[in-house]
């Protein structure tokens, strides 16, 4: 009784959101663990234990998928962190057309990923594409961006960075704007220049922003799917398959139990990588 009196609002207010969360988030998550152990046609299922996991791990393209997923996540995340920071620092300094430039950087984020993928795969056509036409006019023979098995994944990663760096920049801008001006004034009195201001104030004090960017970009990279599907569909062959595209292909083929097992594995893989990373990053954060 006394506890109830202390609260202004009743827990019953949580009920609508709670039910929705349970039905649409918690329940499917729990069920997916179950269905990953069945052979499932969406209407009927037979329990087969861990057979799906065994099949999934014996998939020939899986090792490629795991390696590609890691490479893709690390490359896109790294570039977004570095480019985002540089752009963020640049766009918070006193420059002309600041607002205009900020919107230009953010603009690709607003576009549909599929549309971006289709547009870039057209521009990356080995002989008629815009990229290689421009390179040819400079006397350089451009590579087959999406057909060359060595660079296809990186080509897609570059497009991902082009599209996603805007979000990173906005987070950095918010973080950098929150740094009190007094620090910079103190540095000026001590005779520091812009260069030392960036290294000694902006960089260490935007660590919280940087951590958010790292976590968001890394998890985003690990579970990335739409862009790679729009540009290469995992091809040529299986060379640009990510874990997510392998799962999708199995779902497409009607192997629902197997695809669910793949999703459980992806869930575990993302958790295993992301949680320690998050712990590590927050521990070393500097408080303002």
């Amino acid at each position, binding site marked *: 009784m006394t506890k109830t009196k202390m609260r202004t609002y*009743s827990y019953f207010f949580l009920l609508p959101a709670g039910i929705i969360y349970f039905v649409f988030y918690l329940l499917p998550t729990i069920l997916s663990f179950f269905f990953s152990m069945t052979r499932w046609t969406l209407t009927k299922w037979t329990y087969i234990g861990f057979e799906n996991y065994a099949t999934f791990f014996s998939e020939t393209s899986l090792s490629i998928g795991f390696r590609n997923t890691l490479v893709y996540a690390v490359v896109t995340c790294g570039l977004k962190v570095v480019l985002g920071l540089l752009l963020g620092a640049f766009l918070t300094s006193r420059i002309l057309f600041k607002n205009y430039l900020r919107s230009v950087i953010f603009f690709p984020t607003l576009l549909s990923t599929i549309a971006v993928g289709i547009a870039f795969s057209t521009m990356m056509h080995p002989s008629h594409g815009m990229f290689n036409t421009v390179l040819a006019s400079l006397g350089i023979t451009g590579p*087959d961006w999406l057909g060359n098995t060595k660079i296809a994944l990186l080509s897609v990663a570059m497009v991902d960075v082009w599209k996603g760096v805007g979000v990173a920049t906005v987070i950095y801008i918010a973080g950098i704007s929150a740094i009190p001006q007094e620090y910079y004034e103190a540095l000026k009195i001590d005779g520091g220049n812009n260069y030392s201001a960036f290294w000694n104030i902006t960089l260490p004090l935007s660590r919280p922003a940087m951590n958010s960017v790292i976590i968001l970009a890394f998890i985003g990279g690990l579970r990335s799917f739409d862009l790679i599907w729009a540009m290469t569909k995992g091809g040529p062959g299986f060379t640009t398959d990510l874990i997510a595209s392998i799962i999708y292909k199995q779902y497409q083929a009607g192997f629902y139990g197997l695809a669910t097992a793949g999703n459980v594995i992806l869930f575990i893989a993302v958790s295993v990588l992301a949680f320690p990373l998050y712990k590590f990053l927050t521990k070393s954060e500097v408080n303002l």
Partner: protein
Amino acid sequence: MKMTKSKPLAFVTSIVLMMTLLAGCGGGGNAAEGDTGTAGSTSKKTTLTLMVGNTGTTLEALKAVAAEAEKKLNIAIEFDIKPDGGEGDNLVKTRLATGDMDDLLVYNTGSLFLALNPEEHFMDVTNEPFMANVLDSFKTVVTSNGKVYGAPVGSTNAGGILYNKKVYADLGLSVPKTWDEFMANNEKIKAAGKTAVLASYKDTWTSQLFVLADFYNVKAQVPNFATDYTANKVKYATTPAALRGFEKIEEVYKKGYMNKDFLATTYDVALKMLATGEGVHYPMLSSGLDTIMANTPDQIDDIGFFAQPSDSADINGLTIWMPSGLYINKDTKNADAAKKWLDYFVSSEGQAVFASKVKAAGPYVIKGATLPDDSYGAVKDMQHYFDEGHTAPALEFVSPVKGPNLENITVAVGSGISTGKKGAEDYDKDVEKQAQQLNLPGW
């Protein structure tokens, strides 16, 4: 005191919120149902929905049939267009499983059809009078557990090599009977500065033809391949005759006979290159002729067709693809109208309207429907294989086992990432999953 009163109030408020949400969801559904209800009662016209893929000219031909049928039967068709290939399979399976399928569906026959759980989703039409005119060769590929589920859409189709006759005449080449002769022709074509073998791996499905269209040759050497394959007794990688299909892709790649940028080339572009003579051989289905007719009609007479050559001159025949099937959704509310529509579609009148829009890519599977005299020259090239009895249905029509990743594996082989042997091994692994999903004995 105040707080205890607020508890029931909060409870009521939350319930009201829930109800509002649910009403919001339900309202949309009710409104939609109401709409169709009133439309039906005012005009007395029945409207059926029909799902069909967007590749080729089938859609246009079906539209023409639908327009005629609307006049005759007062049944209108609302088309629901789906993508083809893997994306389309995905969509169809999901819509079937969620009970959201259209009244009618045009979909593949054979193994892909069997993967849909036909008994659960489609109406049994075994004893419908309109099925009497359909040939048994077609009925077997839309049959599951002794019941027939579909009517044929269009003509059969052959897999082999489409070639440019004009270039053949210019270079003094003759139609090859063996694989060695074919490769010799390729060498001469390459020397003449043209693309010998067209590949269009941007549309990944087109990469499978050398394997799939080789099945006549496989069957001629290993007559029981299909049954043993279904029973998990033979494998592609360990059956030399079957492995040849994969090796053929590898050989063509290694000799450098393929077009530049083949990974970025699409089906339509490859057909255009074939029509202009820029490329000379295109391993493809004869239904590609329809696309040539639509895009470059002036060149259609330059295109010929021959069966995929085997290693021996004694074995020379066509691998045949059955037409797609037209299926009725088991849960349709307009079953009678749907049957009436199928009856009209299969009738000679309906078939005539259909054939006016899409020319035959091979013989028809309806009794009395013969190839018209103005058929494509390439289709006439196929006739002698039929007359001699040198044809066999593709593996997907005699075995339910077809792996979903064949197209990616053949792209890998055809672009030098993998070898023919490795590709065949990968494919053997790939089909295992499909066989297990279908609960086939022996897997």
